[in-house]
């Protein structure tokens, strides 16, 4: 370890202050601090500090994503292979899925980190670690057959317009990963929706069908999958969004390490359940409803991207609300709106993406009113002070 450190220090020299490569120091620092947590000590304020830093936080999210990612690889292969052959081997399915996903991850990280490095050097600040998570999320919420250049273009849009334009990590209004997806969704709708994109090769081979559950519901087709299929995730959908159980496993890690807000996750599911339950009640109120409104509320929670969105996207602390009360409202409205969009708008079979983006925009407003409540309490306390004490002061 000492030996590596010495080599690094030697390599670092030309990046020092006033040296030839000073301009590129942010790029080198990113690599250096990735290998070694620096020897910086506290100079003002508290003399001791928590073990946590942004790198750790981001790595925890990446770890939380891995179960869903690996399942997504397997499921990507399984959905395709199970339609063209009788027996599907585990490794065969995983291999097929990996051959599709890994290039997407490579492109996403390559392009995204490239831009981040360029901006850091240009602006002369350190590289924030936010893209470690965004870069992994983007492929995970794309359809399996999306061309790589579209992934690249979406990443460029998300990082430059969605994030760097606002000042980089911590300053963005919209969740960057969802910005990437929304860009692809509106720019290339034929690659992002319909019933031919969700299963590998479905658009090339006629024998392969690739309708998602929400797609079938919207079209009025019968749903062929059981509750367990939906919960375990052996259904078509975006790459890693299908397995509710593994998403919940990730959620457990996020909540436990306090990286993801349990309030947003819980209230998100409650909001979705409430909205779906209201729709379920329509027949009882004498309204007919349709196959989407009559879809059982508890099954609404485990299909589509709802769970993935609530656990990994809505909890993004930068674009979410920051106050405790605000988190309850924000999460609830995301779930509520997601199901509402699903049911009411057949053009968007899944509503979670738009619901989160919409609430991202409204998050500062929610926070504003929560904080305003605190300010009012403080002002009221001042006006309640007895007069004699006021004059004494």
């Amino acid at each position: 370890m000492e030996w590596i450190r010495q080599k690094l220090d030697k390599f670092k020299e030309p990046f020092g202050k006033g040296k030839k490569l000073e301009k590129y120091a942010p790029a080198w620092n990113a690599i250096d601090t990735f290998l070694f947590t620096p020897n910086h000590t506290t100079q003002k304020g508290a003399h001791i500090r928590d073990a946590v830093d942004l790198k750790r936080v981001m790595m925890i999210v990446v770890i939380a994503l891995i179960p869903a990612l690996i399942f997504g690889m397997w499921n990507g292969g399984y959905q395709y292979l199970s339609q063209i052959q009788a027996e599907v081997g585990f490794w065969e399915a995983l291999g097929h899925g990996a051959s599709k996903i890994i290039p997407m991850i490579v492109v996403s990280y390559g392009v995204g980190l490239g831009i981040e490095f360029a901006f850091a050097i240009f602006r002369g600040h350190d590289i924030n670690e936010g893209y470690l998570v965004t870069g992994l999320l983007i492929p995970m919420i794309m359809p399996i057959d999306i061309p790589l250049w579209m992934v690249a273009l979406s990443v460029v849009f998300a990082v430059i317009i969605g994030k760097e334009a606002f000042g980089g990590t911590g300053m963005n209004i919209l969740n960057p990963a969802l910005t990437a997806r929304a860009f692809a969704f509106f720019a290339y709708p034929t690659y992002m929706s319909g019933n031919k994109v969700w299963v590998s090769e479905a658009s090339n081979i006629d024998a392969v069908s690739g309708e998602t559950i929400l797609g079938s519901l919207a079209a009025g087709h019968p749903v062929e999958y059981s509750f367990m299929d939906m919960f375990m995730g052996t259904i078509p959908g975006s790459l890693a969004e299908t397995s509710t159980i593994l998403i919940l496993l990730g959620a457990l890690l996020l909540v436990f390490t306090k990286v993801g807000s349990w309030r947003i996750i819980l209230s998100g599911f409650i909001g979705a359940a409430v909205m779906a339950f209201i729709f379920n009640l329509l027949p009882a109120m004498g309204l007919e409803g349709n196959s989407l409104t009559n879809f059982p509320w508890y099954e609404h929670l485990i299909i589509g991207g709802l769970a993935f969105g609530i656990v990994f996207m809505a909890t993004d602390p930068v674009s979410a609300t920051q106050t405790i009360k605000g988190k309850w409202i924000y999460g609830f409205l995301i779930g509520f709106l997601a199901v509402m969009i699903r049911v009411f708008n057949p053009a968007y079979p899944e509503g979670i993406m738009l619901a989160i983006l919409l609430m991202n925009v409204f998050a500062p407003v929610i926070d504003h009113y929560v904080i305003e409540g605190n300010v009012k309490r403080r002002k009221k306390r001042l006006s309640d002070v007895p007069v004699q004490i006021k004059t004494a002061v």
Partner: protein
Amino acid sequence: MSKDIRIKRGLTLRLKGEAEKQIVNAPRSKTYAIKPTDFHTMIPKLVLKEGEKLLAGDVLFFSKYCEELKFTSPVSGTLLEIKRAEKRKIIEVIIESDPTDSYKNFGKMNAATADPDSVKSRILESGCGVFIRQRPYDVVADPSDIPKAIFISAVSTAPLAADIGFILKDKIAAFQEGIYALQKLTPGKVHLSVDKSSAEYLKNIKGAEIHNVSGPHPAGNVGVQIHKIDPVNQGERVWTVGAEDVTIIGNLFLTGEFHADRTIAVTGSEAKDQKYYRIKIGENSADLVGQVPDNVRLISGNVLTGDKLSNNQYIGFYHTSLTLIPEGNKYRMLGWMPFFYNNIHSNSRSSLSWLFPNKKYELNTNLNGEERALVVTGEMEEVLPMDIFPMQLLKACITGNIEKMENLGIYEVAPEDFALIDYVNTSKLEAQYLIRTGLDLMITEVG
């Protein structure tokens, strides 16, 4: 009648090197010093010249903008040196001490029966006025103000802090007298917070409203207690006094002399003799801990709020502990891996330290990461048990938005209340420093 204050949010850090419950007399320092820099915003005006003789209680300097506020010598001896920094700013007034102290006599007084004006002028002329600090702004109190209440915290919850209940045990008569004196300074109440589990001798103090405090740090911070008991509104002043400082004020009335006695806890994993020492204010650190090697950090105060000291520097005026912890100027390979390096405590459970809630940690001064944009939310609220939005307040301090700071409660906080936020926040933001800057801005703009 006593009331209960239960604090729920916060964090009690368990560190190695707690001081043994044993008080010994420290060797007498050759030199003592009062550091004007300990009194934030105060500009000293010197009274004596180098080489002049003085008694314990003689005025060394007074505040340029408030001449009533006098700073007196803790020991008798000779004024040795006035140390200055850039722009002739005075940083230390050093006194060469006599072998034994002789005291200036202010005359005895019965604080309980004396009239308020003479109590006040006695406190000021003896230099005891400096022990009284004010909220808002967390600076030495302006004697011309009339505070709506006076708060004393006899609760220690900070990591490795001196146990104030233990220190007060032998000084309870002086403490009581001090309370009587402080009672004369406010038309409102004197509030004394004690640990819920503390002994009867503290709960039986008369002349003050007793509050039983329980819960994790920062429950012992006087700011948190004020917030729970009677929060500071815009335009109001409350005063706070350190618990042991009350005994110094009490002693002034009992004996007629200024006895600047302080009991200090020498703590921390790198300290050799972790004990309590009887010292005079302004003692040289070298007399307690000798010369400290480079890989150890010497802190006057506790690990969250204290000041870094070099060898042979003097202990801070208000500090009740001296802490020695290892320096952390070492690289850590792949330090970003969560759930590795579990010997470092993590409130956000990014190490496995939560598995051992009773383990005592040996933490060093490494920053454990680099400064970043504010990303994670909710972690600050978890350690600030006040009805205040800490992140929003810090942002208002960064942008210098006075109206926002005011609305969000800047008058109710002091840097020390944000010390745990320094500790827990992921972005490695210097919260205490930012709050101090915010308060300084308020002083110049609002006053």
